[in-house]
């Protein structure tokens, strides 16, 4: 892993002992199947997006989450439905993991009234108040203060909720992130900042954007708890984030986590990705989150038929979503002014 040379070694996905396997068998199999299914669905949704984009059914910026699915799914697995999540413009995966339907996703991307944000927000601005998916934000780093505010509200109201805020390695140096973390640490707010360090911000590798490539080290400046691990084993991710969630929920303390991950596609659809090699991408695909999960599942006795069935169920879901989006109406221009203000 090129960019890791100067950093401490990362946690490796654990090899399972027999006993662990049995416990897992009983307690976790159902969950693991669900995670796998969700990761697979996110990937297929994103693939459908890419296709629709090439057919010009989707326009504007389109940032795909392919390769990073385990992070969103593992993180949400550590949460309760009431907990808040926020992320960047690369937001389809987290929205799905938090409960947004493929229909609402695809319709939003097709800019239809049936989309999660009525086709007003678009790819970068997914919101789902019912599922506490609090956006989809386009200005790098600027949503971290918002997350701090939701955590502030939770502490104020003692509602026991936790806020999870994702951002990219590209946001680590921006002012808003520093201010958000400063306040969260000072006021001991139940918020978790998760840097999805996929080693590039657009075409810029870590070595040219950060003097310390381990972004979790920023926690030292605030005396904040921190953690750091790889982002392809959904169980590991869930368990490690669960520890931070516990710290937030029980002790009202923030945590800064860096998850090392990798996006297989370009930054957005317009990016040919000339700044990295095929070999590098292939190397990461060897450790794909679906492969790792599948490996666990095979150990748990899940057979080829079941995997095929997953593919089919997911394909149906995505096909249905595309059809739904295609056939949905557009919010007419006459209604736009309604959204300026609320009475």
């Amino acid at each position, binding site marked *: 892993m090129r960019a890791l040379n100067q950093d401490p070694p990362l946690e490796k996905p654990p090899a399972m002992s027999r006993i662990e396997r049995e416990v897992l068998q009983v307690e976790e199999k159902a969950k693991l199947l669900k995670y796998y299914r969700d990761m697979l669905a996110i990937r297929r949704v994103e693939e459908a997006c890419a296709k629709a984009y090439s057919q010009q059914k989707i326009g504007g910026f389109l940032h795909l989450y392919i390769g990073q699915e385990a992070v969103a799914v593992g993180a949400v697995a550590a949460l309760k439905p009431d907990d*808040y999540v926020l992320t960047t413009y690369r937001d389809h995966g987290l929205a799905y993991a938090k409960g947004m339907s493929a229909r609402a996703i695809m319709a939003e991307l097709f800019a239809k009234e049936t*989309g*999660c*944000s*009525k*086709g*007003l*927000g678009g790819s970068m*601005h997914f*919101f*789902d*108040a019912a599922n506490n998916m*609090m*956006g*989809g*934000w*386009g*200005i790098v780093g*600027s*949503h*971290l*203060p*918002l*997350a*701090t*505010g*939701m*955590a*502030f*509200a*939770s502490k*104020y*109201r003692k509602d026991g909720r936790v806020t999870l805020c994702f951002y990219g390695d590209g946001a680590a140096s921006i*002012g*808003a992130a520093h*201010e*958000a973390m*400063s*306040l969260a640490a*000072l006021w001991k707010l139940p918020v978790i900042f998760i840097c999805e360090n996929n080693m590039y911000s657009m075409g810029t590798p870590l070595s040219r954007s950060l003097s310390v490539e381990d972004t979790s080290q920023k926690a030292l400046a605030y005396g904040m708890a921190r953690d750091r691990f790889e982002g392809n084993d959904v169980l590991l991710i869930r368990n490690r984030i669960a520890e931070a969630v516990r710290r937030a929920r029980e002790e009202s303390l923030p945590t800064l986590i860096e998850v090392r991950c990798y996006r297989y596609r370009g930054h957005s659809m317009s990016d040919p990705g000339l700044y990295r090699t095929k070999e590098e991408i292939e190397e990461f695909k060897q450790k794909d989150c679906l492969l790792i999960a599948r490996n666990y599942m095979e150990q748990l006795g899940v057979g080829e038929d079941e995997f095929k069935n997953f593919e089919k169920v997911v394909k149906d879901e995505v096909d249905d979503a595309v059809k739904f989006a295609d056939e949905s109406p557009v919010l007419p221009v006459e209604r736009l002014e*309604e*959204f*300026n*203000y*609320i*009475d």
Partner: protein
Amino acid sequence: MRTVQFREAVREAMIEEMERDESVFLMGEEVGHYNGAYKVSQGMLEKFGDKRVIDSPITECGFAGLGIGAAMVGMRPIIEFMTWNFSLVAYDQIINHASKIRQMSGGQISCPIVFRGPNGPANQLGAQHSHSMEAMYTHFPGLKVIAPGTCKDVKGLLKSAIRDPNPICFMESEVMYGDTGEIPEGEYTIPIGVGDIKREGSDVTIIAWSKMVKVALATAEALAAEGIEAEVLDPRTLRPLDEELIVQSVKKTGRCVIIEEAFPFNGVGSEIAFRVQSRCFDDLDHPVARLNSLDVSAPYNRKVEQSIRPTPDKAAALVKKVLYME
């Protein structure tokens, strides 16, 4: 009626709304233990405790954003900027976030928040601390901008602003905090978006808000001595603007002078002028005129600074020009 200071009127509005609604809190630099840089929040920490009156570190972007996030989940934050000059480091949070949440979420999520603090120059504070920021916020759909000019208006409008479900920029004035004025005894609110005729007159409409209301009234008084009856119109809210009231008045007087403390280029005055000439074209006997601060960064010398600001003398001369009297 009772007489209070402008800062007390602001404080009363906050206190009453915080008593009414548990989800209202006040956050900003030195608002608590220090009782406010300008003593606006005097006593509020003691009254409400540090859960609801929160001293923030110097992180305008951070705590403005924090307020927005809290508002998104149903809180009713009052975010104080020590002055609006410092809102420039939080500008992205207000423009790119607060103003757009309702729209970007397709109406799912709203952002009921009040950003408030003193706006405009005070005395000898130099170039970085003397901005009038109205026009930087009126440009954007999704925001409301309020800039009251009297004790009564500031209290009634701030109460309305705190109750309003939209993001609001509420602009006070450092040099007005010590002004006194009458306010009603009991509880009252003043509706957002409704202007007020501060003085009736038939010869010319003078439009002014915030600190400039006083200048406009002084101008009108001076003119009255010369037999000129000026109507003083205070829009109070700049966005949404009470265009109908303005049009009515100008149609009556046929002349319009705008007094604004901000720089002239792209001030709110230019917007008002556009609308007036649009809708009162045939009623106007003279082009809409405006009196702003000189188009220069604020100098430090007191007299020089005063001489770049709108004054009743300059305004009266402009009115006479508009009346073709010299």
